[in-house]
């Protein structure tokens, strides 16, 4: 159903229904967790596989599990200039600490998957899928009701995401990004032309593969891919974690600067 841009976030009634459904989902999740609140090493009943239901807490591994699949596509001259600036510390063999996320700036997509060893959690309603990101205690909405991205909207850190089911795979198109974030901790840049396609494939009850297509013709000569292999963690609870600037500064002075103290200053 076509919608006007002014209603991009839904009518009051739609929002109320959506919020109520979300709260019910949250309450049932809490209730299920409470019943299964025994120590984590206790065996739990394997959850059933329900097609098109990705609900649950998923863990990707160290660094969130975010990896380049194959190789990064060649950079355009504009992309190369920005990559060189982002990674100047590498020329002095220093740890990259210019990453904006190190200063607690929003990581954007797909970098948010690659912040530390944290989990993500899916909650679903018919019109919205919400992914919660434990790493910085934030979330994003994937609109499943057929709406289109707003025209001429302000560029966003997390972009505007619309999704559809391709068989039982969830395919998400995200556009509308600003160009302030890095794609990952290795300094790969992007422009406002970035288009990200995420394909979530539930291989079985416990395993989900995410393929991420990076399509940014201003920064890369062709699309390339990143990926994460998630495992379902039915015994874990979504934890609290925030990026705390004073902690980051402390970590930098105690660890990074000490480790790199014999290296020349980056030019």
């Amino acid at each position: 159903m076509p919608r006007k841009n002014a209603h991009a976030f839904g009518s009051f009634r739609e929002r109320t229904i959506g919020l109520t459904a979300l709260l019910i989902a949250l309450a049932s999740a809490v209730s299920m967790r409470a019943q299964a609140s025994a120590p984590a090493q206790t065996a739990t009943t394997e959850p059933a596989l329900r097609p098109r239901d990705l609900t649950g807490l998923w863990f990707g591994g160290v660094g969130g599990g975010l990896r380049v699949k194959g190789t990064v596509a060649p950079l355009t001259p504009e992309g190369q200039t920005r990559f060189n600036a982002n990674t100047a510390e590498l020329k002095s063999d220093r740890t990259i600490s210019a990453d904006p996320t190190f200063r607690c700036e929003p990581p954007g997509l797909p970098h948010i998957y690659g912040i530390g060893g944290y989990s993500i959690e899916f909650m679903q309603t018919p019109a919205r899928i919400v992914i919660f990101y434990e790493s910085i205690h934030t979330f994003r909405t994937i609109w499943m009701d057929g709406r289109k991205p707003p025209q001429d909207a302000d560029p966003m850190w997390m972009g505007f995401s619309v999704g559809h089911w391709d068989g039982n795979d969830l395919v998400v198109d995200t556009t509308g990004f600003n160009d302030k974030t890095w794609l990952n901790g290795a300094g790969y840049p992007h422009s406002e032309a970035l288009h990200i396609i995420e394909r979530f494939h539930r291989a079985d009850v416990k395993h989900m593969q995410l393929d991420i297509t990076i399509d940014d013709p201003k920064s890369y000569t062709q699309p390339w891919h990143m990926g994460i292999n998630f495992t379902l963690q039915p015994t874990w609870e979504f934890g609290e974690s925030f990026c705390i600037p004073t902690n980051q500064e402390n970590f930098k002075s105690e660890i990074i600067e000490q480790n790199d103290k014999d290296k020349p200053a980056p030019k």
Partner: protein
Amino acid sequence: MHITTKTTVLACCAVAALIAIGPGAMFAHHGSAAYDMSKSLTLDGTVTSLDWNNPHCLLHFDAKDDKGELQHWTIELYNPLWMTRAGWTRTSLKAGDPINITFHGTKSGAPNGYIRDGDGKLTSKGKELAFHQAGDERTTER
């Protein structure tokens, strides 16, 4: 003991996997490039504090160096949620606790270190404090 056996098996798998993957494949928050991941140090020391914070919990301890002088060390652990899922609390180690610790030192020689689920090991008062999260089935890519 069950935990020790499991850790030993996991350590072998993790080391094999890391050789196969190579550290360049990983994108941790700040990476492990400053650490010598090719070898480990093992020290006996005394805990001075455990900082329970993002982005990494930090373990501070004193240990005698080759000349018998006290050296102060700071070791990166995992984030607090990871540590909790591995069975720790913020009081699992306290100032004065004796430890035996195996970790990766820095390439620069700075008295810092990085302890990793798989090939790191930490015991205190005869008890192992593990870094493997309960329910994490991974034995590779860690």
